[in-house]
């Protein structure tokens, strides 16, 4: 399994370095470990996060691509679907096995055909449209719903912070 995972990750890394995708950049966190990636996500244009550069850590399991990686923001983040410790909560990063509703939403769950690229695209789309139905950060979700101005101010602050960190 590990062999397959390393091969696949190596292949994807090569592909991403050769042909970078708009919106994020990716590289190994530690040159000898293929299973830990550092990614930098550019705040998508026309959203509250525009202009920000957010760092995140992607950790792949040994049985990748059968199981999904986890993604954790290392930059400060304020978003209804990101836990206060930075962990990203989106459905495609969930194992299909722990889906209590069966196959109905299987298409939104993890599948081995997902790649770093598709994961990052999902995270970027999460930034532009938060889902406050199943929030990971309840305070952020509440503010997003009830106090949009306050939410905007808070996000503007973390965007500025992320620029200063560069």
């Amino acid at each position, binding site marked *: 399994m590990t062999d397959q995972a390393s091969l696949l990750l190596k292949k994807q890394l090569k592909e991403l370095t050769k042909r970078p995708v708009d919106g994020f950049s990716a590289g190994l966190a530690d040159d000898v470990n293929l299973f830990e990636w550092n990614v930098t996500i550019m705040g998508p244009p026309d959203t509250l996060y525009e202009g920000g550069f957010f760092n995140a850590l992607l950790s792949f399991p040994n049985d990748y691509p059968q199981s999904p990686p986890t993604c954790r923001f290392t930059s400060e983040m304020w978003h209804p679907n990101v836990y206060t410790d930075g962990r990203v909560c989106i459905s495609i990063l969930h*194992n*299909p*096995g722990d889906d209590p509703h*069966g196959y109905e939403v299987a*298409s939104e769950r993890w599948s081995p*055909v997902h790649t770093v690229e598709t994961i990052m695209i999902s995270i970027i789309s999460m930034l532009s449209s938060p889902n406050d139905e199943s929030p990971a950060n309840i305070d952020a979700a509440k503010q997003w719903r009830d106090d949009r101005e306050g939410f905007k101010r808070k996000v503007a602050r973390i965007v500025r912070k992320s620029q200063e960190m560069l």
Partner: protein
Amino acid sequence: MEDDSDYEDSYVASDVEDYPTSEDGDYGYDPQTEPEISMRRAAYTVLSEEELKLRQQEALQQVMQVLSISEGEAVRVLRHCKWDVNRVNEEWFADTEALRDKIGLVDEQPTGSGRRKESCGICFDEFWVSEMHAAPCNHSFCRGCWKGYVHTAISGGPAVLSLRCPLPDCSAAVPAALVTAVSDPKHREKYHLYSLRSFVEDNQRLEWCPAPGCENAVEALHEVSNEAMDVTCRCGSSFCFNCKEEAHRPVDCETVKKWIIKNSAESENLNWILANTKPCPKCKRPIEKNQGCMHMSCSQCKHEFCWLCLASWQEHGERTGGFYNCNKYESAKKRGDYDAESLKREHARVSLQRYMHYYQRWAENDRARSQALSSKAEANDKKLEVLSEFVATPTSQLKFILDAWAQVVECRRILKWTYAYGYYRFGDNIPDEDTAQKQQQGFFEFNQGQAEMFLEKLNGVVEKDLDNLVEEFKREPGLSEVAPDGSVFVDQASSPERQAVWSKFREQLIGLTEVTRMHFVKLVQELEKGLDQLLAFYSEQPEAEAEAEVEPAAVSTAEASGSATPAQQATAKAPKRSKRSRISSRAAADKASNSAAAFSLQEADSELEAEAGYWQCRRCTVINRDLNSQSCSMCAQNRRGPISAS
């Protein structure tokens, strides 16, 4: 749809089949079944793992033929419809497209030529198309990636049975054939296990036998209702099809559930604490007063206080009328301050005692049932052989002893549950005005008592009396000699005297088994019909009740005289004496069975026999198929009359 020849060795047990008959008509004890007592038909089949697979295959074949679909598709459709073939037909023909869509059946897509390479969508390596696999949607992935995908899903649990194509936007179902083709033997086995389990667990008519280690399932042969239905698996364990608890007829599932929760709940401890302790006024720990004086000091916080008024001992001097004259309590009680509290305490004490009463009886019968079960096994293993030598009778003719044990086991079980029933049916305090309720309680307890008395008697005869008899036989000189190595040498031509004693005992036990069975049948019937109706019914037939009340006295006297014969005195003289006492007990048992059968049970008798399709001679135990004949075809014994001497 059912081909009987396929299921020859699955038997259909109806509750009235107390003595399962084998095909040649020879009655015999079948260790796989316990006699069951009930009036309602409970038709079911016990299926082994092999038979289950056969059934599953049969359902698949049927669906495949009717809908002309592949096996993989049939599995999906059946699973979706909870393995109900009728429902499959209904849903399929109502809206085929919607159903296909819902469960992910897609039309087979054309596969390209195998002689070209394509990239696997998971590992991005190039493979010959012919080496790749795909669900009917034809989204190909390499074998290695399929394997990983399938294995991960199998490890994830039974949800693998609804596995879809790995492509997120494709909902095509992955057929079982593909799963088995790419998985290794260990995972494949697990997959098949899930598939079989789905057949049983999703199917409303099938339930696993809950006994540990038993892999059989029980199939209900009729529409499943939410009512209690006792079934007996081939492994010998009985359980309720509806609630999976142990068999508990005639009590309903709800009562059993409540009772079991109550038995395990901590609430009874709390009740005890409430009834027997008071909290320390300072640290609030419960204190049980175990010494006489009212001056308490808490063992935990050393607080000193008065047990009566719970006030600190310091302010308990002259002001309250002396240290040991706590009139504060009296005046407070007069004002009504403590009434609610002490009432609650008193109430808790009473209800705890009441619960203990029922629980002890429930638990004792439960224990007695286990003991009877092991005694039955012991009798089967050892005792029958010893006995068969003593009385020169083949063990096959001694099955009636096992029947008696089986009856004891079954009756203990029923009796046990009637205590749970009694606990819930009749409240803590039935007010005197509620005569109907009082009457019902009295009636229930009378019947319970009757049934219990016969059961005790039967238990005594099959256990103690039989042992005594064997002891007696052992002591009789000349007929059998115990060799130094423990083996018994027996003169096959046993004395006529012994044969007479033996046949008396045999008849007594058979009669008693039957009478006990009848009493429990009656008890079960009554509880299932409901007490209200029954009271109305019986109030029209007062004589029957009176008659039933007379017989216990007769039997208990007989028992007293019967068991009063000490086994040690059974010397040369003893046979005569014990014979006499046995005759008297025989007579009493005859009388008991007569009056019971003749009056209150005759109707139940005929009903049972009609349902079973035979009647059993109470003397020689032969099965009579002619329901209209009044005398036994074997020994000419009158069907309902007193058992005549042989």
